């Protein structure tokens, strides 16, 4: 995949860095985000996902308070 991107960049000075930056950035952000999401405690996840189902007249102070 990387070769496929790089192949076309030879004509432009310094341009090959851009798609590299873009891919690296994306994968870093993706992995970091994934780790955060998987580490979220199940209880708070469940509570937040109930938010639309709340009766419209009440709120809850959710976990960790």
């Amino acid at each position: 995949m990387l070769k496929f991107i790089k192949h076309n960049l030879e004509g432009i000075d310094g341009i090959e860095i851009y798609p590299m930056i873009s891919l690296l950035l994306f994968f870093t952000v993706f992995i970091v985000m994934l780790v955060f999401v998987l580490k979220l405690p199940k209880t708070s996840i469940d509570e937040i996902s109930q938010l639309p189902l709340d009766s419209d007249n009440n709120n809850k102070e959710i976990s960790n308070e």
Partner: protein
Amino acid sequence: MEKEQFYYDNKIVKMFLWATILWGVVGMLVGLLVALLFIFPGLLEFAGADNAISWLSFGRLRPLHTNAVIFAFVGNGIFLGIYYSTQRLLKARMFNDVLSRIHFWGWQAIIVAAAITLPLGLTSSKEYAELEWPIDIVVVLIWVVFGINLIGTILKRRQRHIYVAIWFYIATLITIAVLYIFNNLEMPVTGFKSYSIYAGVQDALMQWWYGHNAVAFFLTTPVLGLMYYFVPKVANRPVYSYRLSIIHFWTLIFLYIWAGPHHLLYTALPEWAQNLGTVFSVMLIFPSWGGMINGLLALRGAWDKVRENPVLKFFVVAITGYGMATFEGPMLSFKNLNAIGHYTDWIVGHVHIGALAWNGFMIAGIVYWIAEKLWKTPLYSKKLANTHFWLGTLGIIFYAIPLYVAGFTQAFMWKQFNPDGTLVYGNFLETVTQILPMYAMRAIGGSLYLTGFILLAVNVIKTAKAGSRVEDDLAEAVPLKKISGQRIAGEGWHTWLERRTVLFTILTTVAILIGGLVEIVPLLLIKSNIPTIASVKPYTPLELEGRDIYIREGCNNCHSQMIRPFRSEVERYGEYSKAGEFIYDFPFLWGSRRTGPDVHRIGGKYNDNWHFNHMLDPRSTSPGSIMPRYSWIVQNDLNASDLEGKMKALVKLGVPYSEEDINNAKENLLAQAKEIEGNLRQDPEFVKNYGNSNIQNKEIVAIIAYLQRLGTDIKVNETTAQK
């Protein structure tokens, strides 16, 4: 802590609901009208064939249809859902009632302004960004009002955690603002005329960065937010996986912003930018399908409800349509499939799966559900809603399938060669007449869909009449305690992040800006990306005026100016288009659909008389053509009063007109016009009919001058290259 009492603002929700229905009917009606023009090109010539009505021509009505459906129908639909769900998810009334009203009336004023200016031919020509600069400014102001209102509501919320739907709203708010401003940077000439500050390839990249992300952040992210609120709400079940929704959100906004160049595959856009677009478009299928699965599986264990509840039926087809469109998108980004689909009706079918199924059905479901809540009464007729559902679903099928067939048929006809190396269908028109039955079926599909939507209108009006007068809902909730901005012991990072609204908004902005910068900055800064061609010269005054008429009439809605480097296209149209040929094209006019043939190398292909007769009655030179008659271009005097102003504006943008060029502009214009009239007079038929009409003063000479210039700049080079 003591509970506070407050009221949800239902009035504003109701206002957006009526606007959604009204503009839905209008937008679809105009859509049906333009669909009928494909089969009956003379349908709207009420004043006779020799007096065609300019503001009812296809080129001017098509942008009206797209803008009405996107910004008026879906726009009001998402505001309807956002104003309803935001208040309830955050346990707070909207930040400020006055801002809500300004947002509503401002948005409607913009729509009315668009509905007036677009048929008048006041357009910047850039798709879904056609509005001229004064309206653009109002759009930005109203968007800021919406932004203050939304962020303000978030800040005064009574619910600590911000549900995923709200993040999608924030992403929409930020990204649309960025995209809209950058794509609409224009140099004004007069009150309603401006030139894009970008030219050619740069303008194309900027436009499709915008165009693609208008789909992403106006038609997708806000509607996903609505999905995450209304599907669980109606099904009374939480979303399938909240973790997945977080992954969905970040991946989607991060990937979407890069994908724009897939609209420009095989064009004169540099290769690296095209490939970047392909790679990111293909990756997009993962978050998109993650979202679809999340929405559909929210209904797990509730499928029995789907059978009984028309609202859920609409949602299921909508989410399925989202899945189909987002599968097709990445597929169309592969270069080999794009080579088939681009410029054909496949694309039109693809976007209508998105518009009719995903947006239209999502909004229909929400409208039915909210109507019951707003008027506190059951829906007037569930049966009618079910009828709407089936009419709409059939409408989608009858719309999309014929266009897929038409797209493939036409693409293959364009590419078919005889054994001796000539094109089998050398006459472009044969490939158009072949698919006319498909256009007829498409119009039937559209009529079914519109009929269904009218049933919705009737149903909601009856429901409103039967129900109680709209009152604001009373609610009570405990205000939030002040807690530390730091993470609390045991609190997850993301949980912490999502309650820090401002930080969250900034991170979202950063995510979308990175994509935009990496994609666009190199192209704007590095000159070597667009090789210059010495023989390419700026347009003459008459050609410039002709080009502005081309823009006014929306010719680019049906004719591309971009010959791809395929054997079939070079054979049909001539040498493929080079990036360097467009450096004086403010804005670019590459087009996106070939209802008619490409015109980039039309210059010199036919004589002036052919163009004259063709404009007056396309059927006279090309029997069976479905192009509108442009009789007013022959009747109207050419108004060149802004000529110097236009040239001066272009000089500021970098076009090398000299002081002398500008001072002599009018004389040069007249000289070239006289020359064209001279050419026309060589035809005795012309002299007989128009000998006394002083055609040199009419708009037609300008458009002929422009068309005859198109693509001729590099002809000198070609001969030297062949040696």
